[in-house]
């Protein structure tokens, strides 16, 4: 059995219609038979990967809306993310351009230690390929990203993406489970501190 378990937040970025959601659904549903429907819906999913040394890595996968109009909301989702999968569609050259802008933004705004994987989806449609493997691979190398091609439809390469990310994550020093996942800073309440005024002068209503 697994001796160590780590949990990481993974954010999923990419233009709409590149198959982000399908990719994750494929990953989540294929990996294990005991796939359990998420409580609320498929925009947030979790999946566990077991590595060769029996370490288990649990991904919390945060899907984002890829439409341009929601671009400004992305920081709420990639905040505190440990890794990101940026998806493009190999049959749409423009989707790689969009992926590049996501990657630039992540490099500038996200946690500096974030691991980014560039993922060319829809290889089952290779006949209509617009993005050459060499081109994407070269770009990924320049930027220090992981890169692979997948097909959410056939399942090709899907598990491999997540396993590769799991291997690359800093398992020696798992991140503390941060309480800052929710957008908006929590200021917190110091219960030991003497509150100024509030409730001081009035007895409880009870």
């Amino acid at each position, binding site marked *: 059995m697994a001796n160590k378990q780590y949990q990481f937040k993974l954010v999923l970025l990419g233009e709409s219609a590149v198959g*982000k959601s399908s990719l994750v659904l494929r990953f989540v549903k294929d990996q294990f038979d005991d796939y359990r429907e998420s*409580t609320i819906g498929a925009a947030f999913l979790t999946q566990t990967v077991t590595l060769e040394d029996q370490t288990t890595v649990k991904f919390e996968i945060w899907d984002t809306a890829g439409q341009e109009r929601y671009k400004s909301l992305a920081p709420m989702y990639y905040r505190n993310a440990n890794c990101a999968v940026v998806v493009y569609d190999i049959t749409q050259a423009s989707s790689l351009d969009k992926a590049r802008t996501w990657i630039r933004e992540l490099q500038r705004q996200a946690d500096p230690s974030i691991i980014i994987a560039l993922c060319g989806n829809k290889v089952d449609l290779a006949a209509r390929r617009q993005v050459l493997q060499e081109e994407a691979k070269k770009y990924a190398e320049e930027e220090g990203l992981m890169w692979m091609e997948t097909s959410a439809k056939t399942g090709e390469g899907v598990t491999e993406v997540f396993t590769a990310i799991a291997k690359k994550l800093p398992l020696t020093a798992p991140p503390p489970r941060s309480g800052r996942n929710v957008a908006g800073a929590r200021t917190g309440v110091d219960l030991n501190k003497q509150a100024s005024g509030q409730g001081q002068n009035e007895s409880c209503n009870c």
Partner: protein
Amino acid sequence: MRTCEVWKNASDAEFDSATEGMEKLVMNRLYDFTFAPQAAHAVPPKQYNPDDLERDRVLAQRISLFGWIEESHLDIPLDEGSQGFVMFAQQELLKINHYKAPRDKLICILNSCKVIFGLIRHLKKEEGADSFLPILIYVLLKANPPHLMSNVEFINRFRNPAKIQGEVGYYLSSLIGAISFIETMDHTSLSNITKEEFENNVEAAIQALPVSNPQSPIISRQEAPAYIAAELEKPAPSPPHAGEESAQPLALSTPALVNSIGEDARRLLQKTGDTISKPLTAISRIFSEALDEAENKLAYLPGPFAPFELGRERREGGDGQPPPQQGPHPQTPSTSTGAPLIQTPYKARVRKVPLSHMPSPNTTTYSPSPGTMAGLSLEDTPSRGITPWQAYTPPQSAGSHQQIHSPAPRGYPHPEQYMYQQVQSAPPLPPRNQPQFQGPVADGAGLQFSGLSPRGPPGTAGTTGPSTVSPLPYVPRTPISPALDVSGVHKETLRQIFPVTDVEVIDLVLETNGGDLGKSIESLLELSSGQ
């Protein structure tokens, strides 16, 4: 808390439930201090964060400028069958002001999201953020929940941080994202609209804003109450319904009667201009409880309705304070009408039902009499940290009459004590005593079960089984009477919202609820969340 004797030997699960119960207990009691809209109108005055209220006002006003937005502007491919989902998602979201505990408020958000995913399945769209977020924004625009910013901040500040991670954190972030989108939205954020059209629509909405006539058709039914509430900067819907947070799911022993009363209540409440679902829920629960508990006391039914409604009227008239009390208690408000507490010029809009519209012949006597005070305080009871059933106990039995006709309760030394007196004077209630006195650990057992049901903890779960159904006639467009001819459609809808629930279970729930879609969804939400 872990070191306390009571929980020292509790299992992790038990302790988790206990902390949930404790959070709820504490936050219920501190609601007047911690929830800005509540604190702002509390008597005596409490400190509160005026920024919250300002942001509430600004957001609600902004949303009210976008009432004209259609699904096509957000590229949502709604069809005819979608409207029910959208309405239901709105109503789940609007319930956020019914509850006080941070967990319960969160669950309202999650349930709304869950219904949205039901819609996505219904539309056969790819499930994911690409389809989810636009619908969430649309639902938010249509619902315009009062005090949304205050609610979100309240959750952020007071929910156990460990409990707003993961999935819950995702959907809370999405809601915050949707709010942020609305805050910055312009014509470039929307599809199928030109700059001119956008500006004209907003201009028209601004023109419509200062209408003083609440019946104005410009303001749609859903928007009106929220908008008015926001304008008033008062905790309009929350205090009257606040006691519901742990309201008890009920067995529908006499559904037809309950429903017919619900219909009456709805008609009445439509006149009030309030959103239908909230008061209707409370009232139908009250009635159901009454029926359930004291069927032989049906003759009293119109009675309790009146004082409750009057209590609500008065409360909505401008305060969120604890029960007005007679006598020497320092919190005693002006005994006239509560009007002095009203701070805005909009009161006329909120003054809803003239007394003569009240169904009970006793109405007028209740209004100025101590009896009203009793009704009022009864409704307030749960808002002071007490489990729900006490709040609903009084109208059904001797207890309530005693309260109503007796001189005003003096001072309420302690809510439990007051409640305990109620219990003693209300005869047929033995089973309900238990959850109340068992304390958080016992309640905790229910917490685990209740999952996503806000009505779960504490205090209700002990008597709530998965087979009980909660009579919440929520979907206004759904026929209240059993509609057998549409049951097939309803089944299909339910399957889309609850894809993992057994078909037999869905059928059974639908049947149990007399074919009422709204109630069935309610029941299934509770059931599925307990899985």
